[in-house]
């Protein structure tokens, strides 16, 4: 295990100000009733009590960003000739997310294979994502408790999981115990004082305590394959999906707050002479997502769309990517759903339905 370091809370702003010299630093900030990841204002103390409403994915996968820009320029020498130039945006700057949750860090694992050419399938690599991904360091703040909506343990996570983090920070009394997990993480925390053994133990104790507040996985051990099969088995069960989606508003809150939802839209925004091709978040809960030019839509009803969302996370994605769910169990989709649609319950109901049939 790497050397543990200790950062008194009072010195957090100062430390982050230091990082900001070499990195763009994002940190949770309270705004209204929400906590969101913002480029951190100098000298400010990040919000460490309430867990962020949104995930940190937009740091690596912005809500909208430029794929390239285009400019027409009329050639005064040749009547009617217009030159068109395409320009790619500049590479992203090195970035640190301070105070990501462990589920946020694990969420990127759902992106990675898809944006990296699907491994052996050798598909195209998404350079925009990959550049940001490799440029972003994650300082994960270990959760001290689980919320009623948390279910990271279903997906192999835990409140203080080290997966995907560069640094694991644990709040202990009046400071943070920092554990570098990668060379990049080590670089971030190397300047900090070493933690005492007591502080290390306290951190460990905090992890254990947090684990204890986590609701056990129902019917453990969880069988991902069985879940994938059970969800797929419901594919033609319209009644099931209608019932599950009855209260759903078909808004995009769940997908946009989700650390693993990676779907996007591409649109051109232009003033005629010049413009940008934008990639922006899109949600499979929207009808327009699959509306074909002919007017045909394979997923007109919200039931079909919710089916795809759950199906993708727990069946299709796992079948393509080594059985791993496209879900990190952060529970934000449940916590922030205006209708309290609970994805856990849908999965369990699918399992139950499968058990009844067999």
């Amino acid at each position, binding site marked *: 295990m790497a050397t543990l370091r200790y950062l008194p809370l009072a010195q957090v702003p100062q430390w982050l100000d230091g990082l900001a010299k070499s990195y763009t630093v994002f940190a949770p900030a309270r*705004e*209204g*009733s*929400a906590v*969101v990841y913002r480029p951190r204002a100098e000298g400010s103390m990040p919000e460490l*009590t*309430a*867990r962020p*409403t*949104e995930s940190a994915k937009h740091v690596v996968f*912005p*809500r*909208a*960003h430029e794929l390239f820009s285009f400019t027409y320029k009329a050639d005064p020498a040749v009547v009617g000739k217009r030159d068109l130039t395409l320009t790619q945006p500049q590479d992203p700057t090195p970035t640190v997310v301070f105070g990501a949750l462990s589920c946020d860090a694990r969420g990127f694992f759902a992106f990675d294979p898809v944006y990296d050419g699907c491994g052996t399938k050798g598909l195209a690599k998404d350079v925009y994502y990959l550049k940001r991904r490799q440029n972003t360091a994650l300082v994960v703040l270990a959760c001290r*408790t689980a*919320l*009623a*909506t*948390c279910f990271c343990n279903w997906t192999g996570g835990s409140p203080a999981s080290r997966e995907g983090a560069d640094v694991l920070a644990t709040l202990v009394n009046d400071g943070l115990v920092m554990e570098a997990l990668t060379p990049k993480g080590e670089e971030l925390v190397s300047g900090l004082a070493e933690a005492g053994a007591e502080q290390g133990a306290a951190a460990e104790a905090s992890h254990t305590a947090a684990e204890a*507040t986590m609701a056990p996985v129902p019917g453990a051990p969880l069988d991902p394959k069985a879940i994938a099969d059970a969800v797929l088995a419901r594919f033609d069960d319209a009644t099931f999906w209608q*019932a599950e989606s*009855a*209260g759903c*508003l*078909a*808004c*995009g*809150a769940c*997908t*946009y*707050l989700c650390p693993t939802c990676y779907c996007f*839209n591409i*649109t051109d*925004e232009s003033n005629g002479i010049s413009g*940008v091709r*934008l990639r*922006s*978040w899109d*949600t499979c809960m*929207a*009808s*327009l997502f699959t509306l074909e030019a002919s007017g045909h839509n394979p997923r*007109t009803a919200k039931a079909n769309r919710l089916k795809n969302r759950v199906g993708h996370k727990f069946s299709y994605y796992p079948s393509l990517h080594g059985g791993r769910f496209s879900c990190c169990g952060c*529970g934000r989709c*449940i*916590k*922030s759903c*205006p*209708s*309290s*649609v*609970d994805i856990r319950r849908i999965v369990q109901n699918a399992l139950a339905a499968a058990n009844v049939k067999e």
Partner: protein
Amino acid sequence: MGMQKELQAAIKAILPEVDCVIGWGSGPDPLHGAPLFMRSEDDANRFASGFFAVNNPALFLPEYKGKKVAVVVKGCDARSVGQLLSEGLIKREEVSLIGFPCQGVVDHDKVAAALGEKGEMGEVTAVLEEGDALVLTLRGETVRLNKADVTAEKCMRCQYPNAHIADTFVGEKREPVATADDFADLAVFEAMSLEERQAFWEKEMSRCIRCYACRNACPLCVCRDHCVATSRDPSWLTQADSVKDKLFFQVIHATHLAGRCTGCGECQRACPVGIPVLLLKRSLARSVEKLFAYRAGIDEGTPPLLTFTLEEPTIKERSW
């Protein structure tokens, strides 16, 4: 608890006549209710009215066009139903309303704020209603909250706690807490200068994630899947992550609701990042009430912006 039982009885009574009864059940934690679609007695037994029955079930009615459904309505929900009816978006004969005297509902943001350092809402493991107080259990301790402190704003100015249209009314009608809407919330906002207001929206809208929960939670949004927010023909908005577009969408939503919004506040409640989007609609509602003496959902007849009169005595046009 009496009310709960009585409502359940009313629901069970109507179940055989309808495709389903829309009401409320429990949510993922003790502080959250959720819409409940009841088709059986078992379902009805899971019905839960009260302080956490926040969702507006009128939202779902247009989906059930052509089927007969019953819906349990708070006073504000009934206004939405009334407006849907007056616009012909649902048919009276297809909807049966079960009303009751609403005592107000929770505002989760207020609960979260009241808990503060004591913990997050998701840590609450039990909730007890004791008269005017809520007793919450979290992190092994109990926290008492004054219900009045965590009640939704709309309930504090509610003039119509008893569903004004109801086929069945359960319980005794209660006195409304207010006799008129003084738009005090707007007055607070309007204490700011124009510049401050613009800066306010700039800041608030900057955290909008464009999930459109506000729109989809609105019972009167008629466009549903065909909203101009993402359409390209017409193309009102860019998809860029810009405050301008986000604010413009709120303006679009509000203008589409001008003279139609009943102020149920679901847009604002649905916003996952807590943007006070109801304000714009409240401002329009005030104008409409002032200009056309029209209160959406209560007053019958064509919504004021879909009709006109030859003379408009209340419109003071600019004299050039």
